[in-house]
């Protein structure tokens, strides 16, 4: 039992209803803002012919025909396939196309780069300014020796589709230089498509809602604080 007499709390059913309404309102607001989010008109797709079309290596083919199928660096290997059957790809020289994301880690004699070849990189473009959802990212770590790493200048970020590189590399399933990680050791690279900064139209409704509710929140907080001091 508290020593001080506390006033009986008010509210009860009314409070519950109000809270419920508030929650529903928030959900509706969020859904509406998502639905009315402006899309970016920028097209970031890399043309299919440049990627070599549908002629990509996959696990079944490698299992059937062996390493010969890779034809020494002329056929493209998608990151998904490499991760699905890493033993089959070990040591093969393949072609790989991907967007630079994250960091270009310049170190002794070259750079470590993450190249993604998912839809966000090569087709529909990054999420955030609209864009189609297409699952998680998929990519491979790539070692670009000097001077090839100079091609990777702008990594992908929010609102930026980074430089797309076209490389010829050897798949190292357990690369000692990377402490056993799966890497691609590049010996030839070209810049397929330079970085594209997406046009990002401002979502005015969202800004408006944020400002309005923010001011309301600020106001309420100040009022409560003043009240408590009294």
């Amino acid at each position, binding site marked *: *039992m*508290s020593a001080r007499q*506390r006033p*009986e*709390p*008010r*509210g*009860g059913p009314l*409070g519950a209803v*109000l809270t419920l309404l508030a*929650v529903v309102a*928030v959900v509706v607001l*969020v859904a509406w803002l998502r639905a009315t*989010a402006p899309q970016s008109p920028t097209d970031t797709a890399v043309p299919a012919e440049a990627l070599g079309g549908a002629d990509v290596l996959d696990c079944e083919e490698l299992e059937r025909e062996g390493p010969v199928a890779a034809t020494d660096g002329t056929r493209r290997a998608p990151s998904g396939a490499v*991760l*699905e059957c*890493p*033993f089959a790809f070990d040591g093969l020289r393949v072609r790989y196309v991907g967007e630079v*994301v*994250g*960091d270009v*880690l310049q170190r002794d004699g070259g750079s*470590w780069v*993450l190249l993604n070849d998912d839809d*966000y990189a090569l087709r529909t473009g*990054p*999420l*955030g*300014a609209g*864009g189609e*959802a*297409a*699952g*998680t*990212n998929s*990519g491979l770590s790539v070692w670009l020796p000097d001077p090839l790493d100079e091609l990777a200048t702008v990594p*992908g970020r*929010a*609102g930026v589709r980074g430089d797309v590189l076209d490389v010829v590399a050897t798949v190292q*399933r*357990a690369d*000692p230089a*990377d*402490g*056993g*990680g*799966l890497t691609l050791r590049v010996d030839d690279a070209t810049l397929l498509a330079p970085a594209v900064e997406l046009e990002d139209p*401002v*979502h005015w409704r*969202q*800004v408006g*809602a*944020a400002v309005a*509710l*923010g001011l*309301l*929140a600020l106001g309420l*907080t100040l009022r*409560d604080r003043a*009240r408590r001091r009294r």
Partner: protein
Amino acid sequence: MAVLTHLGPTPRDTAAVVAGLGLVSRWVGLAMLAPALVSLLLGEHRDASALLLGAAVGVLLGALLQRGRPPGRLTWTQAFTLAGGAWAVATGVAAVPLALSGHHATLLQAIVEAMAGLTTTGLVVVDDLDHLGVGMNLWRHLLHAIGAVAALLVVATIRQRGQTFVATSNVAESGDHHVLPRRGRSVRAALGLVVVWTLLGTVVLLPLALLAGATPGRALLHAATLATSAFSTGGFTLTSASAGALHAATVQLVLVVLMIAGATSLVLHRSLWARRIRGVRNELDVRVAGLTGATLLLVVLLGLRRAEVFEGATELVRQGLFTLVAAHTTTGMTPGPGRLLVTGWGEMAPAGIVAAMAIGGMAGSVAGGVGTLRVGILAKGIARDVRRLLLPESALVPADYQQSRRHVLTDRHVRAAATIVLLTLASVFGAAVIELATTSDGDLPEALFHAVSAVSTTGITVGFLDAGNDQVGLVVTGLLMWFGRMEFLAVLAALGMVARYVPGVGGRG
């Protein structure tokens, strides 16, 4: 003073809990202001407005719930109801900016992401992580920190009631109308631990990140996020390359230390801080952690060797050790793409990883899993049974174990541990069955791996869940993470208490 024979919650109870929920909502909202500022400065206007909106929603909801009155001191019953409800409120508020980031196909996905953050699971649920705004990414990591503080707060509070409570009960034994001790001490302990270790980690990782070749701004980002994620045993990272992003052995070594620190119990931290190192060796959960860690490491290394995954010993040890520690501490970062664990590691090593995840970290830490203390209690229970069989007279001597001080091992202990283990097993298999039945090309070992990863709040992502499309899988995963974090019965206790607020179910309302 009259003894309350309480059948249902009083208006005072309701007010206290609701006010507490308001406080949670407000603070989660306010926490969004820092990442919002970062977004603004970087020109990520959409994310900035999303985070500001989220902050406003949090504060407004908080104000509505608190009605201008700060909560007084809570009783234990109220506190447990609050704990259950706080998770729901925090997740909801935290999901608002995520839902507006444009990186989630459905609202459900955003909610599950928020849950993955707050439960310190770290499962990758977001779409296109590599193009996510910096501010929004910082918010994800902040969720880990908040979740860690909350978990430690619960531990610190319960500890003040008594050590036995931690081991034998899985939840509030029954209602209790005694008032909680002053919360200041618990808050300081929890917050202090997280802040100190995270800062320490950041400071150590920063030069290492710079050496690895990152630009100064990015190096700071990497250092801060990795430190937060490792100590909170969460597992979120800046990019999809997880812990391999910096390609640096030194970084991974520091992360190993941070992860182990995160999986160490609050009590042990305190002992180590006070230089009381000698007694640590006898603690049951320390011994079990050492034993299971060493054994499973051997299993993983042996399995990798057999499957001829790595040629050199250094790669073998580095990858094996890091992944095992990440699994055993239920952090869930991987040195490379998580998919490789099930496609390129043979059969035996992944099994060891699953076992490590299931066992988890120490009780009373941020880590999840069944807990090394429980595993130890079970092992002792079995040993006691066997010994009783061989030496019937030994039944007269009670078995005991060490956790800060010696406790007697009773049937109650074993039973409590058994309940959790059984519920964990049942939920893992149930989840695997549901997911296999609803996806056309499911793989059983992968389904089990994923389920264990979720329920132990580890979060190693092997690519089993298609977060954008698989709604059932998303719900199942979310439930597993929630139940796993709250150790099953706590969820039910909270639900039960909430149910009593419904007129008719409870007493006077």
